């Protein structure tokens, strides 16, 4: 790869805490290497701010290898920026050229209140999992792992759904701020496996109930979630969730635990 350096203008959302009003602030960063990751470019900006004794920009990040789901920037109008199947931390600066302006915002959804600058509160996702995103099996209860063969195709589909990193890009990308892709990924992961079968009805109903309670919007089949999902979680999961939910409600056994 050809390396080069660039100067950029950044317009970044600043917000002191969840109660105060936010605003865009403009910064210049110079001499950014095309080999840097997007967050390393933010490191440079923050070091610059600290050197000027100004407050650096707060943003969530941890593993920086695309798997923890912590990073969450809305870049030039797209969740995690322009690259397909990529988290913000894996986006690299060779995407940009000298003189570009980049606008960076937090995830915007009522169910993800801003904590500071680009950091949002995604604990609603934990509560949705608490509502049923598990198999009720205590430690020590298990039979031999090979006692029950599972069709490879089913196992692979389940894995593809379980690859969700819970970052919330699906919610941020959706005009309705719906969490259907996230919920459907978990319901699919477990419904596709025999171990998840006994609870599949209550799980679908309870997780949907919790999602509504958290204030996420409805799904209107736009598909922005799938397009922006860094892990390629498929819309087919939403179709499966709808089938699971309807099946549960009409069979009368999906009253939920509430």
């Amino acid at each position: 790869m050809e390396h080069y350096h660039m100067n950029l203008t950044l317009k970044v959302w600043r917000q002191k805490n969840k109660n105060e009003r936010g605003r865009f602030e403009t910064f210049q960063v110079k001499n950014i290497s095309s080999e840097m990751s997007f967050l390393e470019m933010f490191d440079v900006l923050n070091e610059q701010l600290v050197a000027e004794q100004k407050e650096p920009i707060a943003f969530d990040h941890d593993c920086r290898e695309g798997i923890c789901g912590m990073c969450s920037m809305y870049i030039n109008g797209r969740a995690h920026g322009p690259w397909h199947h990529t988290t913000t931390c894996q986006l690299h600066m060779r995407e940009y050229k000298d003189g570009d302006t980049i606008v960076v915002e937090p995830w915007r959804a009522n169910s993800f209140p801003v904590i500071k600058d680009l950091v949002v509160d995604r604990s609603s996702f934990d509560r949705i999992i608490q509502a049923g995103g598990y198999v009720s099996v205590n430690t020590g209860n298990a039979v031999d792992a090979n006692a029950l063969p599972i069709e490879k195709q089913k196992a692979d589909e389940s894995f593809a759904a379980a690859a969700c990193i819970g970052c919330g890009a699906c919610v941020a990308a959706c005009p309705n701020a719906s969490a259907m892709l996230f919920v459907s990924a978990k319901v699919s992961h477990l419904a596709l496996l025999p171990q998840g079968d006994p609870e599949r009805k209550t799980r679908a109903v309870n997780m949907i109930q919790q999602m509504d309670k958290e204030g996420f919007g409805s799904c209107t089949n736009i598909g922005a979630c799938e397009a922006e999902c860094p892990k390629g979680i498929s819309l087919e999961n939403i179709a499966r969730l709808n089938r699971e939910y309807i099946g549960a409600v009409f069979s009368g056994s999906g009253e939920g635990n509430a």
Partner: protein
Amino acid sequence: MTLNSKIPAGPLDKKWESYKSTCKLVNPANKRHLDIIVVGTGLAGASAAASLGELGYKVKTFCFQDSPRRAHSIAAQGGINAAKNYQNDGDSTYRLFYDTIKGGDYRSREGNVHRLAEVSANIIDQCVAQGVPFAREYGGLLSNRSFGGTQVQRTFYAAGQTGQQLLIGAYQALERQVALGNVTQYSRHEMLELVIIDGKARGIIARNLVTGELERFFAHAVLLCSGGYGNVFYLSTNAMGSNVTAAWKAHKKGAYFGNPCFTQIHPTCIPVSGDHQSKLTLMSESLRNDGRIWVPKKQGDSRKPNEIPEDERDYYLERRYPAFGNLVPRDVASRAAKERCDAGYGVGASKQAVYLDYASAIERYGKVEANKQGLSNADARTIRELGEGVVKEKYGNLFEMYEKITGENPYKVPMRIYPAVHYTMGGLWVDYELQTTVPGLYALGEANFSDHGANRLGASALMQGLADGYFVIPYTLGNNLADDIRTKAIPTNHPAFEAAEKEVSDRINRLMNIKGKESVESFHKRLGKIMWDKCGMARNAQGLKEAVEEIKALRKEFWSNVYIPGEVKEFNPELDKAGRVADFLELGELMCLDALNRNESCGGHFREEYQTEDGEAMRQDDKYMYVAAWEYKGDSQFEMHREDLNYEVVHPSQRSYK
């Protein structure tokens, strides 16, 4: 204080069984009145918290991330070992035990390692029952692959995302307990002090990272599951937030630190590309199943890899270690890469890299696939395409990750890789019950020093974290808490809580009031450079002595010239990081002292003065067959205690993979 490892008496393969049958129990009614704190929610913490919640204990979990699911176990790629022998290739509990002892270069306890091998099979059963979607064969049964330091296929996996799938399994079990009210979860909270009352760990002081407030929490026992300390090197494969703070606070309150110098340098990471680099990305060891590692035979060869003919390539691992080839353990593979690069055979712009080449695997798999499809005359291109398809299914996400970072397509051009700091075998000293030298304080997973000796085998970290959490601590904690059932919950206005909180707030205020000129990040980078240069892949007495002095000077500078913006009572990541770097600045010194004390080479600890003629690590069993457990005695003062290692079953020998 003499160290008592509390290894049960009896034959090796009966120790754990007899412990489980005879340990004390706590009845369910009493469990409801016993509080447990779990710090860290990775594989060890989440599995422990879920299992203890299921048993009826009142559990509180803490993590600095925004959700327990973010813990860095999530990033483990390649797999998890278990002695299932599903492949009928000669595996057994004993073999897994033996491979682990040998892989650790005879610096771990037989009793602990055997227990680990025994429970390994239960882990896979448990995870499958939770719905962990492991890779499967067409017959519907579980698939396995090979990892370094073994000659059997015992590694279970879920593509290159095994850690993610296992952690989500444990996280879901944990969230279920949260829903049932058995566990209370505190996210964006960081433990900053341990509270000790009458000689026992009875709680913690944690900072709410959103509000900046200090909060007090009581428990009958405290479990540290806070991971390793590889970030002392600044650049490592750890997450940005991974830190030693919880373990270090415990160390300063009396918990001994075991073998701090035992660091694992992983051979296959994406090389450093410039000064801006904030972390290094691992390319899973599983890639060595099929990839071949080589450098040019000619020094300073500047041709492109595909232009270098086969007979001008040096597959140096296959050449030096024919029995294990590309699957030698990590310490051996890392040193061999360093040796080639230091000798001038390195590749890429920095010359600090070697090739990991998939061309022959792609061709091999392509031919098999062509046969399966009945293509008897497939041309080279078709074979290549078919082969790439197979490789994609096995390692696709890793290849994608490589391409995103480097901009190069590893299906067409060999990957460039170089060793990087990955894991720390050292950690808080614990006995067989996972209890530290502070009664009531336990350490699980990477946070303890226990099972991997001087070098951990691939796919064994996940195994140990889950073994400790699911299958060990539920027994050993009960054995100790049985004596604590009369202890009522201690109110957090107890003077010990007051004092601990004051200690934390004084320290924070001191940090904020330095108001110097240099950023936390810059100090961290400088510390990392000292550690990597002088306490990294190769160490010597001279360098280590220099490092100790340099770290002391740097620490002094930090405490007089660091600048932390913002306020205490708000979300302030710079302040969080400052506290962590301050602790690394103390730990780094101890690591160097430990490395200086250990006048031998073993596993990941390579002292240049102690090597065989052909450059292999040379142990000094007569002098150093012990665990060095360090006691904190005040600023820069540490006293070493020895726990001698007794091998009753295995006979330590010069480790050979030739």
